[in-house]
């Protein structure tokens, strides 16, 4: 870890455990998520990746500590966590299908607005929203209902909503699942464009996508952290290879 990675918007997780009636989906995880990089979170199904993010974003209750900007996320409610500057997407793209792309982004921008202003209708499009539309490339579809978007576009819209919220930390859950190769490329480029000094944590299964875009990788297995490091470090880790059957062969062909 070099000095360029350090900022003040990092997340320090200590001994995070999520217990479902005895079953520990997340078991004593220690993790530091630093600014300014694309941090991939990988692991087999059931490793606890999504549950970890659920606990950090207030969806499920977890014990332990997760400190972001001097706040313990585990003690906060979901919408309070969002207001703190942390956003997430979901495995199934969850945009508001009946509302237009613009309306979706505008709602996301509401986190910056005072409540009493919402009695008014939207005047001109807020700058933040325009910029986000531009970044995610959906300007042409601004007034179309989000429900007609292709799957990839919905994921981009979700990312756009996080941009509009000005989320300093983003958790993206399997963003490229179900996308075509071109869409994956575009998504990767989009993420590289927006990372800036944000922290972006991506839960992923697509090893190729990870190899191309990850700055740092954390591997989880049965609720615990198995290994951490750069793509190369993680790929050459024996334990990781064991857990991912066939990884040895993959490493062999792709080098």
């Amino acid at each position: 870890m070099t000095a360029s990675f350090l900022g003040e918007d990092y997340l320090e997780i200590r001994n995070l455990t999520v217990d479902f009636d005895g079953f520990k989906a997340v078991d004593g995880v220690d993790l530091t998520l630093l600014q300014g990089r694309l941090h991939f979170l990988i692991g087999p199904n059931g490793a606890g990746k999504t549950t970890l993010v659920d606990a950090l974003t207030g969806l499920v209750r977890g014990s332990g500590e997760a400190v972001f900007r001097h706040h313990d996320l585990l003690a906060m409610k979901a919408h309070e966590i969002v207001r703190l500057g942390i956003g997430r997407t979901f495995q199934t793209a969850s945009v508001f299908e009946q509302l237009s792309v613009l309306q979706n982004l505008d709602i996301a921008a509401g986190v910056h607005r005072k409540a009493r202003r919402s009695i008014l209708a939207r005047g001109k499009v807020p700058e933040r929203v325009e910029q986000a539309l531009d970044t995610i490339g959906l300007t042409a579809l601004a007034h179309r209902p989000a429900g007609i978007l292709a799957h990839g576009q919905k994921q981009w819209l979700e990312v756009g909503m996080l941009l509009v919220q000005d989320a300093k930390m983003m958790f993206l859950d399997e963003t490229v699942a179900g996308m075509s190769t071109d869409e994956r490329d575009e998504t990767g480029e989009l993420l590289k464009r927006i990372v800036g000094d944000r922290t972006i944590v991506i839960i992923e299964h697509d090893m190729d996508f990870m190899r191309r875009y990850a700055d740092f990788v954390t591997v989880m297995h049965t609720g615990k952290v198995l290994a951490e490091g750069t793509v190369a470090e993680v790929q050459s880790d024996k334990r990781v290879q064991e857990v991912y059957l066939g990884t040895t062969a993959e490493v062999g062909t792709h080098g």
Partner: protein
Amino acid sequence: MDVLTTPFLTGTATGAILLLAALGLTLTFGQMGVINMANGEFLMVGAYVAYMTQQVISGAGVSIVVALPMAFIVAGLLGLLLEVTVIQWMYKRPLDTLLATVGVSLVLQQFAQDLFGAQGDPVTAPSWLGGRISVFGYEWPHRQLFTILLALAALAALSAVLKYSFFGRQIRATVQNRQLAETLGVSTRNVDRITFFLGSGLAGVGGVAIALISGTNPTLGTAYIIPAFLVVVIGGVGQLKGTLLAAWAVGVVTAFLTDWTSGSMAQVITFALVVIFLTMRPQGLFTVRTRSLA
């Protein structure tokens, strides 16, 4: 001692009827997410079956014994009919189902009124239900004892069916994970129908018990439907033992309140208590904590 035992026992008997009304609701609500506001009318149907049976069979005792299974079948079939014609098209829309069944309940009430008149008809209880039994020096009306035993028997039968029978296993599988059950070859459509039949039939049986206590009446369902739902909600949707406890609690609390204040204040206070309970524990007494967000 009497001041405490009388409302306690009366309340238990009321709770027994609530249980019969609520069992069907908790089954259909828990399994299919369907709210059947016409369940009160299935109680009414059961009551009228008891009345009609008595018109045909003169002996009071025999007529009740015949009425019980008859009410179960008639109410059950009516529920099945409702499921097939109306409810099966609206599974994904629970609030719409609620309103549609409100419409059904209106129709059934009016139909009963047109058929039997608005006054309501008496049902003669057999002589063996007329007396009292002495328990620990307290006089317990046979009628109340009968109602309680009837409800417990129905609950036991339902639990047995769910636990040991083929259909019961299918029902439990569908409640736990509908999609998975379907991939395992369970016809969830059939399961839904059976569930509705069972639940409505139980309400019919409860109606017979009501008829024995206070006769029939086209609107008798309306007095029970809301308390029955509150019981379902308090007990935890789909939880049988929760429904039992909740029915008992609601019955007893209402009986005590009715004793101390008046009947109507009891309703108001019960409502307030339910709201307070729900604000403290919105999921009910018993739930299953799962990994899913559902």
